[in-house]
Each structure stands twice: as C-alpha cells, then as structure tokens.
C-alpha cells in the first residue's frame, strides 16, 4: 500500500517525506493544476530539487497536470507535460483526453495516472483510458462505496488510488460547474473551487455571515466557529423552509476506520488531499496514516490517531465509502 501525500511548497514536501510518504504529488505554479492558489506550487527548478531529494530517499514524485486545457491555448499544458518528462518525474496525473493523447504521442515512456478530475467511476470508463492512453493507475472519484471499489478492482487492469483524508467533494469531481456558476472560476478551467478572492465575512448584529461572491453561504452565532464558505458546504433553504446543510456539512473525509477493508480490497495507493495545507498539517496527517497502514499490514489493530483537530469543523466522515451517505 502506497501512501501518496500532498505538497504545495518545498517545506511541506520535506515534512511529507520525513513523516513517511512513499510518494509526494505536486503541481506547477500555474493554471495547469487543480490547486492553482497564490503562493503555492513548484517551479521547474524547485521540482528538480524535490525529485533529487525524494529519489535519494527511495521515494517518488508525481506531478498533477489535471485541469482541462483551454481551447486555442494548449501550450501551457503541453509545456507542463514536456517539463515533467524532461525532469524525469515518476508519473503525471491528468484528466483531459486531449492532453492524455498529447502525452501518449510525445512522451510514451512517461507514466500516466488518471486524475480524480476525470471522474472514471466504472470499469468501462477506466478501461477506455487504459486502451486509448495506456493509463497505469486511476484515482477513483469519491462516489463509490468500499464494496463497489473492491468489485471494480476485480474488473480493471490498472492500479487504483483512493482518497483517504482531507477536503471532500460531495459532487462527482471534474463534473461540477457550481463554482463557475457562482464566481466565474471553476476547478476544471481555473484550478480553483470557491476561490478565496470571492470570499468575504460580514458582521450582521450578533451573526457572522460568510459569503461567496454575491451569495450568503453560512451564518454563525456567538461561539460557533466560522468555516470557509465552500459553496456546497453551506446552510441553505430547500424543501421545508428550514435552513440546513442541504448538500453536506462542513466536514473532512477520513477513511481511517475503513483502512483494513481498503487494504484487503486491493487498492494500490491511499491519497491524502491538501496541497494548499501547511507543513505541520501535512506532517501530522501523513505520520498518522503511516502508522496506521504499517500497523494494519503487520496485522495489528488500528492505532489511535488524533486527527480531529485537523478536520473541517472538527468533524469527519467516511463519505461515499459508506452506502448510507448517499
């Protein structure tokens, strides 16, 4: 079982490697990756250093080039693939069919993983990418139960990687235009969801209101801690007039309790979300998961992990991995 960990900066990369990451995944500092946030990500030179460091420790680096190239402006994405290939990274993570096609033609030796942003949720879709672009691994969308994942693994010829911890999309990834509907910026086109540039907080009497663009996402009374206004994790009014977390509560994904089952199912890699996170966060999550994986592989019980303080709203869920989430 491979532990794949995020890094948005060289210091987070150090932290991940120190804490026991088998692989660290990163992105370039532009719109070619799905965490295109200010002050984050790697230049080609920083990537070279990171790769040398990881390889010296026997670890690997993957590069996410997982937004959808803009029509009439493919060159930034082609350049990103060329650079990753030249530097010799261990794999690239991609979603766009045109970009997979380009990579297959120009860099056939570069290992290709299918990003979660491609939303390949069944054997037929996954085998399409295998047949057309010789994809070696699929990062599964967060829509499948553990049982469905186990069944799926029996029917595909590529490795599977699943999300274990961190931010949780409640929508099928790569098939969501909610952010661009509300803010004009989307994960697929701009590498951002509910971007910070559109976030504001307003004190209204005793209430603190969080807003995204023109819309109120949540309101907090005294003592309630205010969360980031991700647009699908706010309080809204639907059927009966009572406000509720209609889509999802502000919560993080944590599959720790399903770890033994996931390992048994034949999943090849566990992924930690959070290239936007600081080094302390990365160190704590990665080391907790490292300890847990090692314990399960030794046949021991899951160790206690204290990840509660690192989850959104101090809450976590196994999300779609359990059927009753639906």
């Amino acid at each position, binding site marked *: 079982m491979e532990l794949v960990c995020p890094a948005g900066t060289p210091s987070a990369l150090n932290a991940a490697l120190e804490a026991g990451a088998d692989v660290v995944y990163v992105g370039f500092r532009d719109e070619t990756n799905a965490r295109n946030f200010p002050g984050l990500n790697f230049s080609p030179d920083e990537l070279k250093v990171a790769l040398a460091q990881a390889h010296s420790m026997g670890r690997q680096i993957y590069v996410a080039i997982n937004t*959808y*190239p*803009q*029509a*009439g402006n*493919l060159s930034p994405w082609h350049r990103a693939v060329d650079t990753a290939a030249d530097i010799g990274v261990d794999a690239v993570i991609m*979603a*766009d*069919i*045109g*970009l997979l*096609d380009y990579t297959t033609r120009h860099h056939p030796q570069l290992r290709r993983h299918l990003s979660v942003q*491609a939303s390949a*949720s*069944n*054997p*037929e*879709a996954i*085998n*399409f*990418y295998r*047949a057309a672009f010789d994809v070696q691994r699929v990062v599964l969308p967060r*829509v*499948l139960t553990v049982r*469905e994942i186990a*069944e799926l693994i029996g029917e595909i010829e590529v490795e599977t990687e699943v999300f274990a911890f961190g931010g949780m999309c*409640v*929508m*099928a990834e*790569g*098939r*969501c*235009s*909610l952010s*661009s*509907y*509300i*803010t*004009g910026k*989307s994960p*697929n086109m701009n590498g951002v969801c509910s971007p910070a540039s559109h976030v504001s907080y307003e004190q209204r009497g005793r209430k603190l209101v969080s807003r995204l*663009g*023109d*819309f*109120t*996402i*949540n309101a907090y009374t005294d003592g309630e801690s205010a969360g980031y206004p991700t647009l699908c994790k*706010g309080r*809204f*009014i*639907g*059927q*009966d007039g009572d*406000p509720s977390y*209609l*889509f*999802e509560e502000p919560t993080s994904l944590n599959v720790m309790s399903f770890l033994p089952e996931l390992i048994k199912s034949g999943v090849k890699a566990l992924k930690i979300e959070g290239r936007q996170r600081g080094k302390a966060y990365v160190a704590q999550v990665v080391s907790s998961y490292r300890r847990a994986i090692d314990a399960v592989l030794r046949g021991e019980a899951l160790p206690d992990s204290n990840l509660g303080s690192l989850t959104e709203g101090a809450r976590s869920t196994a999300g779609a991995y359990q*059927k009753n*989430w*639906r």
Partner: protein
Amino acid sequence: MTNAGPKLTLGPVLYNWPADKLRDFYFRIADEAPVDVVYIGEITCSKRVPFFSPYIPEVCERLEEAGKEIVLSSLALIMSARERKELRALTSESPWPIEANDLSAISLLRDKQHVVGPFVNVYNESTLEHFYETGASRVVLSCELPSTSIFELGKAANGRELEIQAFGRLPLALSARCYHARSHNLSKDGCQYVCELDPDGMDVRTLDGTPFLAVNGTQTMSYTVNSLLGELNHLKDIGVTHFRLWPHDMDMVEVARIFQNVLDNHEDSERAIRLLQELVTIAPLSNGFFHNTEGFRMVE
C-alpha cells in the same frame, strides 16, 4: 428536416415527470414543435428508469412519423452493476443512435456512430478531435464554456456537428448522493421518489432568501434559466450547428417556436427575448457562462 441549416434539438427531460405526462409531452412535441432532433432517456437517476421505459417505443414511433431525428441518451453517472448492465443493453440493442454521457458509454460505442453528450468534458480542440476521430458524429459542449472557447471549438469542428445548450436550467453537478431525498430527511435508497414533486427542480435559497441553485435528485441545477437566444446568430456564424433546449414544465412548443423564429431570421432577438421572458416564470434568464462571467448573470 434535411436542410443543412442550424438545427434545434430537444434535450432529454432531466426531471422526474410521471410516465404518462412524459408520453403526452413527447406526443405534443411530435405533433407541434419545430425541433429537428429529440433526445430521450434518463440521465439523472437510474431508479427512475423503469417507469418510462415501456412508453419509449410508441413515443419514438410517433416522433419518427413526424420526421424527428431520435437519439437515446445514456445515464450520466454510472456506478452500480445494474447501471452497467443497462448501459450495455442500451448501447448494443438500441435501434437509434446513442448520446454518450459518460466515458463508459463512449468506450462501448467506440467506432460506432454516436453523440458525445454534455456530461462528457470537452474543453478544447484536441479532445474534440479525439472524439470525432473515434466515432462521434456530434459533440454537445459543457455548459461552462465561454464564447472564446466555443469560437475555437467551432473553428476546429470545421463543419462537423457541434451542439450547445441554448435554453433551460443548466445541469451544473452530479453526485452519488440524492439531495432531494436528503432535503426530505430520506436516504437515496428509500427516497419515495420525492423528486417527482418538483417538475422543474426544487429551488434552493440562501439564508437571506436569495435564490441560489435548484436540486433535481442527484443533480444540482442552475437556479436561473440559461438562454442564448440573443447569441444565436453569432453562434451560427462560428460553427455551432445544433442548439439544445432543455425541457421544462412549460409551453416547450412555444419556446421552440421562439428559438426557431430567431434561427430562421424571422424575428429579431430583442423581441424574442421579451416573448421568452413572458413565458419563463420559474426564474430569470441568464447567459453568464457564454460571456465569461458568473453563470447566473444576464449580460445584455
């Protein structure tokens, strides 16, 4: 219906309408609506499939007699063994062409003529070319593309068929979770088909009461009703060949006539937009995505 000019299409009904209502809807479309292509099928939730399936042959017969081109649309999010089995049956047995709304359908239809539906991501000319080369006769574009991208894709299509979503609430997101059931404190498995209560989707408002989104089962829709009526002539000029109207619980024959009159240059678009605004009472019109801004906005 064989003229080479721009064609008006009717997308599949995204909502859960009772089967007999759906049948009567299509009968009226066959008899009265000036649309060239009709897409039929369940996109949103496989639990809804059994209700309308028995009516499909008679509906298709009536539409064919009326000279409509028929395309059967496939489910957008495929996860379970049952959904996969149904997809295999559809792609192997359908007498009509299929609109593939997931890569699984494209995989099964490879090198067999098909339409690539709007739930498959096509953002650039390179992806577009891949689909045309592997059997797509037509590609329907994602709703969030700005005019600059549509322009490039129209150029790349170079006369091959390209469709955009020109009218209706836009399908913005898909999920494994059912928000309709959740809003009624039900689970997806025990949903009691509550989505049937909202034939145009359930409005979702913010805590201030501001209209925000709409929910259609596992699908999240725009609150506003997309209209590219004012942009039709420009879109025609840049290589878009097909214009999709998403069905709503309103007079769709009249909606189709308004769009057809503008496509045929029988009506100026300003007056047509006023007529459309009178007809659409569920929410305001919007065209923001096309104008490279927030999707909910209406750019005059």
